[in-house]
């Protein structure tokens, strides 16, 4: 069971208080109508499945009810950091490579 730091509550809390909400930093296209079916399909359905560092969104659903982002290693499950929505992800992070 993970222990997750909520950047709003500023505390490490148990995973039971949170709900996972999928990959982070997937911006909704500004003008969906201008996209091809394929482009829209990419936004809808395609997600990274990296072996290594992964940025994902969590919801403190049984706590402050805020959404925030987490950088988690999908192999070791070590969470490098949590940061609020809207904050730029650290540029220095090494992208996890797709699992082949």
């Amino acid at each position, binding site marked *: *069971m*993970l*222990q997750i730091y909520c950047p709003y509550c500023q505390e490490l809390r*148990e995973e039971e208080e949170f*709900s996972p*909400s999928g990959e982070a930093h997937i*911006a*909704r296209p500004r*003008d*969906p*109508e201008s*996209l091809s*079916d394929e482009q*829209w*399909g990419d*936004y*809808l359905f395609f997600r990274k499945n990296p072996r290594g560092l992964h940025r994902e*969104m969590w*919801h403190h*659903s049984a706590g402050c*009810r*805020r*959404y925030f982002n987490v950088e988690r290693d999908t*192999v*070791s*499950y*070590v*969470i490098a950091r949590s940061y609020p*929505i*809207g904050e730029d992800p650290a540029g220095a992070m090494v992208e996890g490579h797709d699992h082949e």
Partner: protein
Amino acid sequence: MSDSQRRLPAGGRLDRKQKVSFTFDGRPMWGLAGDTLASALLANGVETVARSFKYGRRRGIVGHGSEEPNAIVQLGSGAATVPNLKATQVELYEGLEARSVSGWPNLDVDVIALLGVFARFLPPGFYYKTFMAPARLWMTYEHFIRKAAGLGRAPQNPDPDRYDKINRHCDVLVIGGGPAGLAAAREATRQGSRVILVDEQSEMGGSLLSLGGSEADAAQLQWRDQTLAELEASVDVLLLPRSTAFGYYDHNFVGILERLEDHRGLTSPGRPRQRLHRVRARQIIMATGAQERPLVFANNDLPGVMLASSVRTYINRYAVIPGQRLALCTTNDNAYQLALDWQEAGCDIAVIADTRPEAEGVLPRLARERGIDVRTGTAIIEASGRKCVSGALLAPIHAGGKSLTGPATPVECDLIATSGGWSPVVHLSSHTGIRPIWDDEAIGFVPGPHADGPVAVGSAQGIYCPLACVEQARTEGAAAALRAGQGAGESSSPSPDIIAALEEPAQALFLVPHTKTTSRAPSQFVDFQLDVTAAAIELAAREGYESVEHVKRYTALGFGTDQGKLGNINGVAILADTLNQSIADTGTTMFRPAYTPVTFGAMAGGEVGDLFDPERYTAMHRWHSEQGAAWENVGQWKRPWYFPVAGESMEEAVQRECLAVRNSVGILDASTLGKIDIQGPDAAEFLTRVYTNSYLKLAPGKCRYGLMLHEDGMIFDDGVTACLGESHYLMHTTTGGAAGVLGWLELWRQTEWPELQVYFTSVTDHWATATLSGPNARKVLARVCHDVDLSDEAFAFMDWNSATVAGVPARIFRISFTGELSFEVNVPANFGRHVWERLMEAGKEFNITPYGTEAMHVLRAEKGFIIVGQDTDGSMTPDDMGMDWIVGKNKSFSFLGKRSLERSDTRRTNRKQLVGLRTVEPNEVLPEGAQIVNTPDQAVPMAMQGHVTSSYFSPSLGRSIALAVVKGGRNRLGEKVFCPLADGRNVAAVICQTVFYDPDGERQHV
């Protein structure tokens, strides 16, 4: 011997004044307070404690702790019976009833052994081959195998005991209370850490509890007492004896099972029996120790062949002598301590066979000085005896350990103790990605390094010398404290006052050679519990299984309830040798939690019976209950399903309730619908983005029905939203969808549209809702509501008004889910029952009828109104449901899901579309979920056209009605289709419009 027991006259950690009576397989026996069931059985001279899984061979007690593979027992009978316990871990209590779980009809006469059925049945690879074969073959065998082999029976009745759970946090969790664990815990405590020390035994001390009476041993025991006393005196230390850390999980989360009452009796009335500690630790120190490896030689499974350290434990801790004349075979110095203690106890030693070419360490020399026959370069290659050990075969062994260098000679003995060295207990962390690595010096797998994971100390890290153990544990204890934020990392304890004999290097020996080849020698057992022999592992390798995980599955090595604690390393080494590769390259199988079995009771804790899941009640719940309502579970809500009167069947009750609504007036408790209060200057804009239709022009006092789509264009919720005032709305959601919708709204507001000023609050529980529905609804309401004009002109369909109902401030929504004139009366929940009862009184004249969810479903289906989650399943668009009219195509913002409605797949014309179905035979009610085909005259599998989503008998229409989704259904009105049913019938039905009753919708507008 005393009292005809195999008991030493003095010594042991026992209360000699307290005799404890117990039974084993019905035979009355007694032991002493402080005994385990295993030590008591040995004291009573019990040799055979089990019959082996496959061959039905006699098995005796081998070990003294969690490694024991044979002595598996079931305690007690009836509801409280506990299966699958190791006798070595069961503390004796007065009246204990134990039964062996194998052997039929009993341990002494075993039919399986007599017939040899399983040996023929279960060659190596049996499981593998059976699983690869058609599934039914396994089904055939499984029942028989389980029954005959048996590892206990699950209780059939509810557990009479209660269990407990607790969450804990600490700076440093130390797992294992042996010398290393005690030293680490003390050091961390001195640094100022909050420490939890957990150990599976009844008292702390681990291997120290097995020590004898020598000067060195006495000094170590004194160190243990002092250290423990210091820990006990500290307020920052929680000591958990009788507790097993059974699993290590992510982020330093550890599950610990504490056995609070198991040592007192089979049940513990009034007190929790076990407690599950869920511990989150900043730092974890694994002081889990090491388990002695048995040597693998011919007939090494005979009762009377035991681990050297276990024999030593039985003598010193339990004052039990498990034999008269001992033959010891060892690869190391450490086991000589047994011989010295054995001799001290006044018993005979036949021989010490040391497999090493020479043995010149302190202990071997001491043994020789004491006149013990020590033979180096010698091994016990075979045990002999019929029911138990009566002798051993000795043979000179080559220095490499692979072959014999001379003929075998027999020696007389009734107990063989063996030591093949030690295997660090790496189980706890090995499944988390911390793969164990082979250590040549330790001759064992030790935990690999891990940045944030547990640190192993002492023999768990392959450090076997007690002095070095304690030194390293102190250092790591201080380091763990520092990482947890306490101290400076320097250990404060003085050097421990421990004397320990220096030991010479051990020999790596995993299979003792025989005069015959492995395949022809008498069986050399590697895994006792599942009867896996050295020959079977060699066979697996010959058949091409090279991965250790494959060999495990092929031979069942390590598959038993002991997870191969004794056998795995020997098995891996034999495989490596057969494949001619190193053990390091071969690797070990992965141990997984639980380390030892955990009861379901402890995992469930208090969350059983009424406390299993919360139940949600509306404000009118008790009234419904008094009326004898039948209940439907909707999520956690209890909703009245129907209200039967005087012996009515469900069918009769639902028909009466439906007709009451259509012909006069009914009343429904609709409190469970989700209600979200939405406020803020951008609320209307926000609603317009999340619903398919627009709310920008919804005026205060008006209501609007909306469909909510996920971004893939599929319907996931629906409901009516009312404009309460400027920038203030009340959204209704489905009963089951309320929590999900709130999260969905917050998601978009927080992540994509933070610039919108809008706020959400769940108010579901704040309001109680009574829905009046039927032609007389207005008349009823008028009797208790006088401050609002209820006429159709003043209070139109889809309006809402503030009003006073039965003296209570209320919101009345004129919305309808039945197609009849309806008023939904919302009052603060505390007034719910009062208002409900006043409405019932007011409706008496019109025979007002409470109706439940079933009648509500029938009434809405008559009108073709969908229920999200019943008529939709996450793959339905608004157009599929025939609800294109509610999709605002010209809204300026591309609402959620809109773009997906234009995808090629959602534009297909042959998508499944909602239609009505009328069965040709009007009394035939189709089962919901029934598949629809064009004609039953086709081969199986038939081409499916869709399925029935809702189906009822409509009392108003006097016939059955159904809603269904059918491919291209809206263009197929009037077509006949068929539903093939499980009973073989094919029910014919005609596709029709979805609205069965009042197709022009006039009744709700009156």
